[in-house]
């Protein structure tokens, strides 16, 4: 079975965000980029699927040359080969999905794994968009997945619980924390990854419909009050919550 996993290359979550001089994107100076945390879960699920069913895991990413670092990380975890769909410009989610859909079609993948969210723009939609463009079934925010031939039983996280979903291949699954524990890339994997191929081609790009006009930092919070250092401050805290904040 052909398995595709789509990965994005994003600023490390510990990054302090500084707005760039264009006032539209972040200042990338000194920022460490990593494989998107949710995509590690997607890679793990792809590898588990391969281990259970056999097949080939292809890692695909849309973006500039640097995205190869995250593709390489996925290869080190155990994926078989990579494809970089080169695109040096800001691309909105629909644009990214179009490029991915075209590649997935060419790969003729039966199952495609995404992270539930890319921790840069936090859109949480590229997987669903791609699924619909391909006409594949889609389960987003999956926390449990069982494949039985063509049949899929999955659980997705919703407010206050889970939905149990039945569907079938071909399908897109977007992965949420809790679905699995991503493996570490061991030294052997890192060495092996160096010999695996990353094919490069230009992304099939389209015009962006979502245009960023401006990026800014949220207004800083006023420093608060430390009411005290032990339980003697509790009555005052409760009074403030009742009378000043009026929240309880």
């Amino acid at each position, binding site marked *: 079975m052909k398995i595709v996993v789509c990965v994005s290359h994003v*600023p490390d979550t*510990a990054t*302090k*965000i500084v*707005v760039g001089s264009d006032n539209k994107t*972040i200042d990338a100076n000194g920022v460490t980029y990593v494989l998107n945390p949710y995509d590690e879960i997607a890679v793990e699920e792809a590898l588990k699927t391969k281990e259970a069913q056999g097949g080939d895991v292809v890692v695909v990413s849309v973006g500039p040359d640097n995205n190869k670092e995250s593709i390489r990380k996925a290869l080190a975890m155990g994926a078989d080969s990579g494809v970089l769909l080169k695109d040096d410009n800001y691309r909105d989610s*629909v644009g990214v*999905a179009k490029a991915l859909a075209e590649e997935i079609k060419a790969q003729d993948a039966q199952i495609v794994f995404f992270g539930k969210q890319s*921790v*840069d*723009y*936090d*859109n*949480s*939609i590229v997987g*669903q*968009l791609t*699924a*619909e463009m391909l006409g594949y*079934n*889609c389960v987003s925010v999956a*926390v449990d997945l069982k494949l039985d031939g063509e049949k899929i039983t999955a*659980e*997705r*996280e*919703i*407010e*206050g*619980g889970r*939905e*149990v*979903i039945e*569907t*079938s291949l071909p399908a897109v699954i977007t992965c949420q*924390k*809790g679905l699995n524990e991503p493996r570490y890339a061991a030294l052997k994997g890192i060495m092996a990854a160096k010999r695996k191929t990353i094919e490069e081609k230009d992304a099939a790009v389209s015009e962006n*419909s*979502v*245009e*960023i*006009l401006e*990026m*800014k930092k*949220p207004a800083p919070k006023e420093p*608060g*009050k*430390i*009411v*005290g*250092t*032990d*339980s003697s*401050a*509790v009555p005052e*805290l*409760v009074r403030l*919550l009742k009378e000043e*904040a009026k*929240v*309880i």
Partner: protein
Amino acid sequence: MAKNILVFIEQRNGQIKKSSFEAVKIAADFANKLSSQAEAICIGNDVEGLDTIGGYGINKVTHYKNTDLANYSNSAYADLLAKHAEETGSDVLIFSNSAMGKDLAPLTAVKINAGIAVDCTNFEFEGENVKALRPVYAGKALINVNVNGDKKIFTIRPNVFKPGEPTGDKAEVNVVEVSDPKLNCKVVELKKSADKLDVAEADIIVSGGRGLKEPDNFKLVEELAAQLGAAVGASRAVVDAGWRPHNEQVGQTGKTVSPTLYVALGISGAIQHLAGMRSSKYIVAINKDKDAPIFQVADYGIAGDVFEVVPALIEELKK
């Protein structure tokens, strides 16, 4: 160019979700600002009180009905939504950025060929143009965006836009019986997490971190939460340690929350945690380290021991 606005009303177990009233109010605002029409769509089987959306400014709702639609099915729902949007010439669609909205809105966007901006927290209108504001990098930055093209979809962050008190107006409900819904992907069961309030929906959240020392001590967090009618949240440190389930994690790789009140107990306030909760209206921190970064975002703090302060707080609230 006249706009037609369509808002999606989400139901579970036949009940309209609270965040849908927020979406209805926003759709009514859009109609007002763009001098256009707005209507609503709901998909389900028996749905209670659909006419009450009239109280939030929309006077027409189409209810697509079938027993197989009682539970969510993204294939069937997206299909009906797209058809309805085409039939009514709707060019602006509004969803809540709920679990269902996040799943459904992008599928619909592809079907009707719309641009999509998600998780919006503010809108500005300039003539025909709508500028949407949304948090990115887990709220460490904000972007203003335009959605270009003829059709646009916006999803709105739950809990941000308050719908206010409804007027007594009733909406006209049009029931359309659906035959043969497209059930390629279907929810066959709903598993509730033991009737617990979810952090994503709660108005008050009490979260605990590693300062609680061991999983058993979370009963302090739970007791305080019960006293406040709050949901229980957690830092990643305690989720990773297996003390608490994943769905309670607040932060950049957990849930982004904006409750009215967020209480952090024994949480240091790492950048990834702050990212997920800093937009809460009021933040209270109890941490024995007065230099903990959580105090930089807290409105009120007690720089003390959770094991001494929290029991006193629970007692004080019982009074």
